[in-house]
């Protein structure tokens, strides 16, 4: 792995972890950094291909985005929706206070 491709360092890993709310043990950070650089390095091989005339590919199936008509077909399943909630009260999810 050349230096040029080592774009991820430990501060970057810390930042991504914070944004993703992941708690990463100090001891795994160097390994994770290496893994991320390896992945990015692997994907970077695509940069060698000339794609200037290639349209972005959104799907290999050739399907188009399906549309549905505007009908109410779902809902009224509060019990199911709240089933996994660690805490709920009178139909609400209850979470530690979020203050803006």
């Amino acid at each position: 792995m050349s230096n040029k491709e080592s774009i991820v360092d430990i501060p970057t890993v810390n930042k991504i972890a914070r944004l993703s709310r992941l708690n990463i043990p100090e001891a795994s950070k160097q390994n994770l950094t290496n893994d991320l650089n390896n992945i990015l390095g692997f994907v970077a091989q695509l940069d060698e291909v000339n794609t200037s005339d290639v349209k972005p590919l959104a799907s290999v199936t050739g399907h188009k985005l399906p549309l549905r008509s505007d009908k109410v077909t779902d809902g009224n399943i509060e019990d199911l929706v709240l089933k996994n909630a660690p805490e709920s009260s009178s139909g609400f999810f209850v979470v530690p206070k979020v203050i803006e």
Partner: protein
Amino acid sequence: MNESINLKPGQINGETGIWEMVIGLEIHAQISSKSKLFSGASASFGAEANSNVSLVDAAMPGMLPVINEFCVEQAVKTGLALNAKINNVSIFDRKNYFYADLPQGYQISQFTKPIVGEGEIIIDLDDGLQTTVGIERLHLEQDAGKSLHDQHPSKSYIDLNRTGVALMEIVSKPDIRSPQEAGAYVKKIRSILRYVGACDGNMEEGSLRADCNVSVRKSGEEFGTRCEIKNLNSVRFIIQAIQSEAERQVEILEEGGKINQETRLFDTSTGETRSMRSKEDAHDYRYFPDPDLLPLEFSDSWVQKIRETLPELPDLLKKRLVTDFGITPYDASILVEEKDYVDFYQKAANGKDGKLTANWMITELFGALKKENISLSNSPISPENLGQLIALISDGTISGKIAKDVFAEMMISKKSPSDIVKEKGLEQVSDDIEILKLIDKVISENEDKVKDYLGGKDKLFGFFVGQVMKLSQGKANPGMVNKLLKNKLK
């Protein structure tokens, strides 16, 4: 401060000179769909907590979003009404952030390729002037859930009913230069949305909310650093918040300080903005195309079909009212503010004096409804009855003065004006002989004043007119009274 300087709206006279505001608005308009943007749960307002939530909205693993065709149509329709470029291919992206009322951990939005591109609208200012405001883009996105912070001392309560409801975000260019223009812009967008039927425009229920980007600069200088005021839900608050924010920025800059680019909240109790506790990396949304959704594609012919369903929009309608009914552009701009108003007016003015109808509707009817706090749709006076009243004035059956009494009676009894006029015997007296009788009576009772008048006291003429009108209980045709009196008193 130099009080003699005439400031234009949007200008601030600081210690170091005159500053101007640069304002851009992001309007979030809830689409008037029955179900959500990507799920079949109801999008209605005010249901029991978490009852309008599907497993898609709750972001359960394995659930897939399927887009609502009606919402796509409304976005295109609105785009057309904003004279904007419609993008036949657009992409949905994930905007990633963590918040308790966002179960997916991301909002599905459109970042690089929105459904609608650049456009422009004309806004109407209070002084009758107009100005153009550019539209940067319009995109489709999901609304977030609702957090209640006042139910418990240490907990927040979360209701996901609004989660996934379809929004259009309409982003203006930074073309707006005063709080008043910002207000006029929001009103115009709201009016267009209501004409098109894409959004009910109800700001109290949050169907329409605005974020305002505000910066200040000296005329001709580059744009300054901006602050964003979040979530304003009335035109009045938008105007207040922008004014107060711009003044705050001028004060900081004149003291040699710097503006921090940040998100601020408007405190309606103090009328000032304050910093939202800025979250670290808050703007690092790590957008990427949503792998669950293919690009949204449609054909020109589909767009054309939607174009054909567009109603007559306020700007064109305004022009037509001026030509067809001969009313002033100012009156026309009031009448096109709401679709209700125009519909009412066109029914009332049908075959009548358009100008007179506009005057009566705007001054008398709107005034009376406002006083009673009634909306036009619940008006006790129907368009047909207002039209009939205008006809009675125009053909001389009643005078303008009597018409006001008839109008007041119509507001109470809902009766037709011709019935009221007949019942109360209010027909205007336009008969020469009847009026001459009254004139003779007035002259014989005021012989000394007649002498004075003939001796050169011209001002007494008004007295005689007044006496004749009084004697007729207001029913004499004032024009004829004038004419006949002049002849009599030669």
